[in-house]
């Protein structure tokens, strides 16, 4: 401990220097060539000395110079540096530097740094890139734009959450999303879900989406060691969000940004339209079992007849193995008329668009009105925004109201303060249930379904009532599924979330070089969800409701001191601080699993025991940290940082150091720099960071079951073996990188290579259950990751007044390998990351992170698949059937402009990453997938290898037990309905998407000058998620691979579960500045 504190102090002391005496005086000002505005804070240094100053708020300066001093160096971030001969009166004009090299970037703790000085990869996305295509949420607009960042979206439902992973997956934790820091303050990005995280639930969205993209100035992603200053919170990377401030033009500016898009379903699964509801109804069955009956007679007598939902033939069957459609058969159906008590036979015909007809056009709009004001002493921005979305699934919606306020006030040259505050209200009347739950209509619509259903009659009659005013629950099926319209109109899931986060800092600057900051950050949300179940055959036969209230508050107090001074060729920056963090979480739930009167969702209407639950969690941590940077002659930079964390969840304290170096050879070696090579930077860094744990994991507790039995509490001792000496996950990482600029930096490349070693994973290791606990909390495991990130930026065409073309290509690949789990437990060779429907996503020693394990094909040694006596596949349990990590990710952005017109598009490519699909598994079994009619398999007996899965060789056992080529006949229904094996439903999740496109026109000044008050006007045609251009052949349903299981944390990775088809948005965007 003492040693660590000593280290911190050494960093601080390194910043202290002595101030020398000075002589004659020069004065002057610095202005920008752009607008003639004063440049505030420009650095002026007398060349060859350590003497210098910075300009004041009016861009003025005065400086005592020793006699004999000749040259004054002038520099300012974003401007081209100058070296000028000294004269007593100097009026300096600086040119802005468009080159990205001198880009300023926000780094950890909100410190602005010149990008070239950084010894690690950081990538920034600015507001323009985020909002250009009219994306409605931050997570969507980030997707694909940063090398090494993967954003997984969970289906096309309104309000669904996303999972962000940075530099692949290298943790076993459920939650391994990056830390989100807004204006220097960490905010919660937890996703609240109901349900079991395995089969079903409702996803109430990502906390990150409480921020209006239009209020964001920039997003910086700290990918590896660059996050070290966040210590125990940095393990999964950090996303730094800087909101828009009032800085800019003097005076008052009013802006309006609006967009309006229409959303249409873009990727419908490929379903068959040849056979309807029933079982054993195809030609094969008719021919083999029809006993001479005509197809019509066979169909009506044996296969399908709808009487009342209960007493007909196969009417309760939610599968499509019935008679062929569209060949003139007539059968009684759910929407056939009843005459004299008898349901009539009507045309047995297909409705190929029945699914498409279910979805509507969704509308989204986002309006932001902001004012900005800048004066000598202050700048302020305030905005109000309103977003309204309606989903492609009828009666799903989300509204968001938000207000944002930023101000920065300089009281005098010593004292200033700032304040940022953001309030958001998010509301939904109905968000869709996910996965296999009764409140996800996708199951009954597309998967376990009857392909002949007529959406029009379901829509027209969903609310049909009997003479007593009770719903008749009109539907094609009365056994398993509610009418999908009934589900979405009566079984709704509503949300209301109030989110407030704010930061305020007081700054005291006794001298120019030293600054103290007291910072308070506060983030709180208060969220209420109400799930109403009028009736649901499966889960709520007697109705019910479930209300949950969540409260979370996080308080961060920081005291920070920073020192910044130039000593000759050296630029010294040192910062030290301390942090106190407190997180309180509270959860209350009440509801009823049955109701007395249908449709009244209140406790007094409960039937039976109420559902009641409460949960609390409290975390506290204290930290001290320091970071320092030493720059030499604008070409060599050394950064050091150190942090020590104490957390209530961990008994020991932990120390996190980092070091990085950046060198610009093109500055050091003049000869290098030429017409070809304009810029070269070589960088490298090393860091150790951590990932902490949740509360209460270090001891065993007694708990009571949520419900008592006969009024007696049911108590159990936790069946997880705790770990008293729990440590945080530890990540050691290093990276090297090279940045080059060619042809005056028109071609810019940035290549990074990194390695990561994650150790001390906090694992809830499952046991075989027989040992006295089902899991134990362990600190073990090693995952090594290495990866490459490449960014290429080319200003391919550049011409004032002509066509400009900028192209940016991102590429990243991450290779992970699980090196060990727990050496003391040699039996532990795999660790479960996620699980659903019998398929596990596991970490297996020697394999990459995320291997799908489940029933696979039993193969002979030479690779043929074995079939049993019935000609169906023999399965083998616990086989490796897929790998969830993609091979690589790539995004390609192209922006064009001609005068006032600009346009562009963005392509997103992912190669690899396997997914086990519930939609596939169940739609195969239910005979709804197109695959189940391919190659006329329902018309005849089939043989595996000849008629299905023709690219595989199948073998059967002969009388002597030898494996010989399969000739056993089976039929399509047996094959798909009962012969399926989990391995069949794994598809390669590769895709190429046209993610965004836009055409934008800025009104010329000549037009605007006629329109009083409008200074700038841009109108754009925008589109996002425009087309799924390519998917892998194994994706037979053509599902959007950018999806996940019902849990949007690690547990959902590698799975697809009855997801809502994704939608394409096209619309208009308008930006006006007054």
């Amino acid at each position, binding site marked *: 401990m003492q040693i660590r504190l000593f280290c*911190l*102090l050494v960093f*601080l002391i390194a910043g202290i220097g002595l*101030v020398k005496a000075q002589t004659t005086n020069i004065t002057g000002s610095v202005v920008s060539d752009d607008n003639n505005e004063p440049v505030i804070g420009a650095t002026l240094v007398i060349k060859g000395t350590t003497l210098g100053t910075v300009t004041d708020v009016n861009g003025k300066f005065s400086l005592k110079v020793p006699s004999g001093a000749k040259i004054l160096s002038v520099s300012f971030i974003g401007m081209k540096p100058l070296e000028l001969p000294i004269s007593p009166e100097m009026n300096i004009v600086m040119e802005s530097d468009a080159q990205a090299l001198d880009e300023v970037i926000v780094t950890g703790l909100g410190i602005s740094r010149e990008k070239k000085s950084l010894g690690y990869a950081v990538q920034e996305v600015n507001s323009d890139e985020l909002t250009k295509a009219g994306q409605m949420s931050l997570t969507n607009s980030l997707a694909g734009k940063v090398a090494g960042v993967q954003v997984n979206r969970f289906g096309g439902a309104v309000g669904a959450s996303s999972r962000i992973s940075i530099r692949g997956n290298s943790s076993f934790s459920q939650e391994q999303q990056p830390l989100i820091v807004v204006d220097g303050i960490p905010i919660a990005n937890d996703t609240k879900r109901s349900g079991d995280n395995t089969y079903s639930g409702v996803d109430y969205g990502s906390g990150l989406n409480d921020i209006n993209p239009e209020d964001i100035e920039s997003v910086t992603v700290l990918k590896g060691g660059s996050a070290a200053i966040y210590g125990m919170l940095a393990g999964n990377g950090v996303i730094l969000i800087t909101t828009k401030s009032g800085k800019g033009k003097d005076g008052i500016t009013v802006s309006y940004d609006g967009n309006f898009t229409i959303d249409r379903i873009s990727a419908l699964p490929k379903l068959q339209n040849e056979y309807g509801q029933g*079982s054993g109804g195809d030609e094969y069955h008719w021919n083999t079992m029809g006993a001479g009956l005509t197809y019509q007679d066979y169909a009506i007598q044996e296969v399908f007849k709808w009487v009342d939902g*209960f*007493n*007909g033939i*196969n009417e*309760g069957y939610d599968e499509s193995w019935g008679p062929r459609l569209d060949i003139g058969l007539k059968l009684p159906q759910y929407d056939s008329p009843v005459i004299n008590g008898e349901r009539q036979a009507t045309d047995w015909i297909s409705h190929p668009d029945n699914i498409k007809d279910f979805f509507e056009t969704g509308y989204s709009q986002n309006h932001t009105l902001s004012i900005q004001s800048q004066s000598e002493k202050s700048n302020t921005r305030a905005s109000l925004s309103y977003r309204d979305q309606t989903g492609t699934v009828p009666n799903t919606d989300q509204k968001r109201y938000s207000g944002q306020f930023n101000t920065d006030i300089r009281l005098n040259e010593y004292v200033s303060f700032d304040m940022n505050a953001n309030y958001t209200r998010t509301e939904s009347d109905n968000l869709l249930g996910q996965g296999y739950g009764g409140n996800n209509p996708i199951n009954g619509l597309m998967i376990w379904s009857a392909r002949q259903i007529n959406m029009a009659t379901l829509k027209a009659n969903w609310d049909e009532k009997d003479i007593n005013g009770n719903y008749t629950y009109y539907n094609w099926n009365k*056994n398993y599924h509610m009418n999908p319209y009934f589900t979405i109109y009566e079984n709704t899931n509503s949300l209301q979330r109030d989110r407030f986060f704010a930061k305020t800092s007081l700054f005291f600057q*006794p*001298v120019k070089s*030293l600054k103290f900051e007291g910072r308070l950050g506060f983030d709180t949300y208060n969220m209420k969800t109400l799930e109403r179940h009028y009736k649901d055959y499966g889960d709520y*036969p007697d109705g019910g409701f479930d209300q949950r209230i969540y409260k979370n508050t996080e308080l961060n107090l920081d*005291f920070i001191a920073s020192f910044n001074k130039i000593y000759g060729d050296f630029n010294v920056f040192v910062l030290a601080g*301390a942090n106190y963090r407190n997180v309180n979480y509270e959860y209350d739930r009440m509801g009823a*699993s049955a109701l007395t009167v249908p449709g009244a969702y209140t406790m007094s209407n409960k039937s*039976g*025991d109420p559902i009641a639950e409460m*949960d*609390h*969690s*409290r975390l*506290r941590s204290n930290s*001290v940290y320091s970071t320092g940077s030493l720059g030499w002659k604008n070409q060599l930079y050394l950064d050091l940082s150190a942090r020590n964390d*104490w*957390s*209530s969840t961990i008994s020991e304290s932990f120390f996190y150091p980092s070091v990085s170096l950046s060198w610009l050879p093109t500055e050091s070696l003049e000869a290098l720099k030429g017409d070809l090579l304009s810029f070269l930077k070589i960088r490298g860094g090393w860091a150790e960071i951590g990932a902490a744990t949740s*509360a209460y994991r270090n001891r065993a*507790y*007694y*708990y009571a*079951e949520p419900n008592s*039995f*006969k009024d*007696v509490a*049911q*108590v*159990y*001792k936790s*069946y997880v073996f705790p770990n008293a000496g729990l440590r945080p996950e530890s990540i050691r990482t290093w990276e090297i990188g090279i940045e080059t600029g060619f042809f005056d930096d028109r071609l810019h490349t940035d290549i990074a290579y990194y390695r990561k070693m994650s150790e001390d994973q906090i694992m809830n290791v*499952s*046991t*075989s*259950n027989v*040992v*006295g*606990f089902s899991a134990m909390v362990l600190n073990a495991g090693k995952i090594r990751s290495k990866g490459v990130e490449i960014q290429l930026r080319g200003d391919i065409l550049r011409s004032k007044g002509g066509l400009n073309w900028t192209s940016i290509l991102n590429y990243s690949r991450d290779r992970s390998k699980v090196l060990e789990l727990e050496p003391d437990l040699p*039996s532990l060779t*795999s660790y479960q990351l996620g699980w659903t429907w019998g398929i*596990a996503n596991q970490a297996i020693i020697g394999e990459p992170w995320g291997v799908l394990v489940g029933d696979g094909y039993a193969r002979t040694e030479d690779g043929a698949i074995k079939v*049993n*006596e019935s000609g*169906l596949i023999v*399965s083998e*349990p*616990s086989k490796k059937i897929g790998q969830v990590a993609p091979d690589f990710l790539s995004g390609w952005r192209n922006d064009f402009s001609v005068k006032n017109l600009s346009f562009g598009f963005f392509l997103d490519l992912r190669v690899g990453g396997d997914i086990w699909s519930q939609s596939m598994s169940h739609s195969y079994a239910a005979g709804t997938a197109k695959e189940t009619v391919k190659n006329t398999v329902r018309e005849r007996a089939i043989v595996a290898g000849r008629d299905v899965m023709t690219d595989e060789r199948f073998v059967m056992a002969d009388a002597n037990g030898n494996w010989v080529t399969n000739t056993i006949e089976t039929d399509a229904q047996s094959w798909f309905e*009962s*012969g399926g094996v989990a391995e069949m439903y794994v598809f390669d999740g590769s895709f190429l998407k046209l993610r965004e496109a836009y055409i934008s026109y800025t009104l010329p000044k000549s037009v605007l000058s006629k329109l009083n008050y409008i200074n700038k006007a841009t109108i754009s045609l925008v589109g996002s998620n425009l087309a799924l251009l390519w998917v892998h052949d194994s994706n037979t349903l053509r599902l959007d691979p950018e999806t996940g299981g019902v849990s949007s944390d690690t547990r959902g990775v590698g799975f697809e579960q009855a997801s809502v088809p994704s939608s394409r948005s096209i619309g208009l965007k308008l930006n006006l500045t007054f």
Partner: protein
Amino acid sequence: MEIKILKWFGLSLITAALITACTGSFDEINTDPDALPTGPATNILGNVLRTTATQHGGDMDGCGTFAGYIVKIQYMDYLGGLIPSNNGYGNRWYNCYWGNTQLNTILENTANEADENQNIRWAARIWQNFLWLYNVDSWGDMPYTEALKGEPDKGGILLSKFDTQEEIYPAILDSLKKIADEMASGMGDDPIGDGDFLFGDDPLMWQKFCNSMRLRAAMRISAVAPDLAKTTIEEICGDLAKYPLITMNDENAYFRWQDSAPYFEPWYDNSRTRDDHGLFDIFIDHLQEMEDPRLPAIAKPATIDNQYHGFENGAKSSPQLNTVSRIGAMYRDNPTGFTPFYKSCETYYIIAEAAMLGYEVGMSAAEAYDKAVRLSMEDNGVSDANATAYLNGKGKWDNTKERIWWDQWVALFKENHEAWCLYRRTGVPTTNYPSLNSIYGSAHNDQPFRLPYPQNQYNYNREQVELAVENQGIDDFAWGAQLWWDTRTGVH
């Protein structure tokens, strides 16, 4: 300026010192406020009992089909689910080990005051043996001697070997005998408490249940360990005052449910949302052929003709639903209904069979059979007159073990697991057959012999489970080898 900086360093040091000082409350902060400070024994026992009833009581197909009682009528049962899984069967396996651990917690927490907690400690131990017995009869070899020893101070055994049934059975019987002898020497003074959902805080009932379990287990192994079976049964029947048994219907080990969610009787709870189950054709056929007066209690007539019709097991396709008999109201339509663990009639079926085996049981087989049948009739609400008519008619005692078994089969309805054990031991009902369209084709001519070991055994104890599978000669996860006490021939 230097002074200011020095001041600031001082401040930093103070801050750092403060930070380390206030970590003192961290332990308190990291204590879960939603947890209970202690685990009262009666509440833990109650939870284990209720959880066991939830896990075993929900079984309709599965053991119900294997026993020849119930078939699926909407989704045909082709035995595709008979694979290693942590759900369904796997939950019952889990419940055995989880329940044993919870009950061990009671024993550990009361170890220092064992004399003051005798009754609840006995109840805990008896239920532990019930759970072991249930598991060994479902799966055969299983971790027993090396089970529950994962904690470092209990041996740190994370890869438990599987013990053979030949080893486990005598150990269970030995443990139950010890408890029975301890109880016989005088009951304790402590209440078992509100958590005794099975016997309503009646230690004497636990004593009867303990001896009844011994009777059941002993008869199960009568063909393979005749000496142990005989001595056990003769010891009990030779001194019923010392080793009392469950002999009356109001003593039945019936777990009774409550009238509200989530703890409705599981078959009733299922009926709220599902109508997947009809009665097995062999069951209805038998009851009709025997003119068995229990039929109206066990089954409902089909609505189409008001007649009783069973349905085939694993037919090619689903029947017209109104043509099949469903489970009777007493068993399925009562939210506060029961999950049976032991019926008093079982005592007498076992004694009758023991008498046939020549054991000294103080009663003739005919007497015991008569008593057993009358208890079962009473339990099904059949009048004395109708019971007598049956006993004088088709159910007349014919001095064969088969007569006992056939009647016991009918009587065990809803105690599906026990009935499946009866079938595997005796081959009755002889009419039983596996799914007609089983995915295993003709590889098997009988109902499954056992349940597949759960997926977690394959995931986390693979070497041992594979050794156990190999040692027992199990094929297809469930067939290949009959259990130790299953001596039938010609089945595969």
